[in-house]
């Protein structure tokens, strides 16, 4: 972790030096330690990140490093967030997208008010619908721009009192409505067919009455069955344990004891 932190400090210093004339007073919210972005892209994204941060008073940032030395991406992102004083205001509100290029690890973490604006479902959607498809194709500038634009949307919804979540996700609602339509249609078609089929099969069975007998139960006289030995011997016991699946989330954010919420994986 020390090696990563040292590397990160050098990235930050280099970035500050590069941008000093333009953003002398600003802290870089887009820290590209690998050189994925051109200078213009870098300036543009930084400016956008700052605009969003100022407008919604919640810091949105992007940190890209070369190598996290095999450490967990989420833990590395958290330590950078804490060690380099990321976050807006006293409650350090913010959302950080962290990439480690060598391992192709990603992490997205939220803190403070960021946990309210960026719910678990919101982070999942941000990653799966918007970011990961582009990151997978190494389209970094586009993915960062979309990331920043989407965070602005999320923050706006949160400010309006309805953070982006399961119940406010219009795409999800449309998918549910669509699947619900097909389920209802299947019920309308299949249930009557099954009922009619069952009734007709009962009527049909009345037409065929000649059936061969397999058994001779009728011909066992009263008292004709004698059980002379009856043993139920216990042999051994086996035990299996299965994790009880939690009911599907009804929304909200799962915040850890360290105050962070987040997602991580590979892109």
């Amino acid at each position, binding site marked *: 972790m020390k090696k990563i932190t040292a590397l990160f400090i050098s990235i930050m210093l280099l970035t500050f030096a590069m941008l000093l004339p333009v953003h002398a007073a600003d802290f870089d919210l887009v820290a590209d330690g690998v050189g994925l972005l051109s200078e213009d892209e870098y300036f543009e994204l930084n400016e956008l990140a700052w605009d969003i941060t100022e407008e919604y008073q919640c810091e949105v940032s992007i940190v890209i490093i070369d190598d996290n030395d095999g450490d967990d991406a989420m833990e590395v992102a958290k330590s950078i967030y804490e060690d380099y004083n990321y976050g807006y205001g006293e409650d350090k509100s913010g959302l950080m997208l962290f990439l480690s290029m060598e391992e192709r690890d990603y992490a997205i973490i939220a803190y403070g008010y960021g946990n309210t604006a960026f719910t678990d479902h919101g982070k999942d959607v941000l990653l799966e619908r918007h970011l990961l498809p582009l990151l997978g194709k190494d389209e970094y500038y586009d993915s960062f721009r979309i990331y920043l634009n989407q965070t602005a949307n999320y923050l706006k919804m949160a400010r309006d009192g309805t953070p982006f979540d399961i119940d406010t996700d219009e795409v999800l609602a449309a998918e549910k409505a669509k699947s619900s339509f097909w389920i209802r249609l299947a019920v309308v078609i299949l249930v*009557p067919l099954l009922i009619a089929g069952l009734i007709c099969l009962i*009527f049909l069975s*009345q*037409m065929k009455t*000649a059936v061969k007998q397999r058994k001779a*139960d009728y011909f*066992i006289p009263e008292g004709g069955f004698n059980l002379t030995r009856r043993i139920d011997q216990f042999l051994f016991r*086996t035990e299996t344990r299965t*994790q009880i699946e939690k009911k599907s989330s009804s929304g909200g954010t799962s915040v850890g004891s360290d105050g962070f919420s987040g997602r991580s994986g590979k892109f």
Partner: protein
Amino acid sequence: MATEVTNYQCPSCTGPLHFSSDSGKLDCDYCGESFDVATIELLYADKDQAAADAASKPEWDLTMEEWGEEEAAHMRAYSCPSCGAQLICDDTTAATACPYCNNPTVVPGQFTGMLRPDFVIPFKMDKEAAKTALKNNYKGKKFLPKTFSEENKIEELKGIYVPFWLFDGISDGDVRYRATKIHSHTQGDEKVTVTEHYHVVREGNVRFEKVPVDGSTKMPDAHMDAIEPYDYLALVPFSSAYLPGYLADKYDVEANVCIERANDRIRSSTEDKFASTITGYASMVPESFAINITPGEVKYAFLPVWVLNTRWKGKDFLFAMNGQTGKLIGDLPVDWRKFFAWFTGISLPIMLLLGFILF
């Protein structure tokens, strides 16, 4: 001194078991289970004997009486040149048509080489009762073609004595199952499922009396099985005095050919009887069935059946009614237009109703 070495296998994982002098039990090195010696001995006990019993085939006593000269003199034999049925009747009854195929020309033959039935159950249902039962059988059949019942010649209903072999026997069974009981409870965020494995043994015997197998190839087994059972309290020693007015079918399947069918039915019922005593388990997997049938008597009997053979649209339909209990069976033709009309008539309104509710 001869020493017999037995390699016991673990019932849990089939690994070899060894005796532990510390615990006094048989331990498995592979899965760590321990078993009482008595438990393992029980598992292995009598296995060879059971296998030998299962392999043995019962021998039945097929010695039977033939017709006396005096009685045979008053009997007539006929054969149907169309379906090959062999019919007998007394000299007061005229066989005018074959009851199986309705061929109006039956040929008189020689009444020789036949066994005399030991028993007979006389007809209890008369022809009128049989006709009424047949008409009632058509009622309420939704898919019955309208023309089928109209074109039936119910008058051609014939009472015949069908030859049956009646087998007595006792089946001794030694059945073994592997059974499980399952309990589950929740511990923290885990579901704990405990499965208890049992070795289940049942031994005993089942007595069977007069298991019938029809001895006529003309009468389908399914028809004769389906009109069972006859009340054997009405079974009386055979006398040709019961024959006037009825035809009797001469057996054309020997008793020794029918034995296998009787044995199958006896075995199947024996397995069910033992299985019915094993309760309280979540699952039961049979390990071995050793069923040994001790043969008893085999008797030859005439049992009363009302028969109607009718032809409709080029296909034969045979109806049979138990001449003692009145139980009637017979496959009926299906009018598939009626079937689809009913299917549509039921499904469409429900579809509309559900569509109205759900959309």
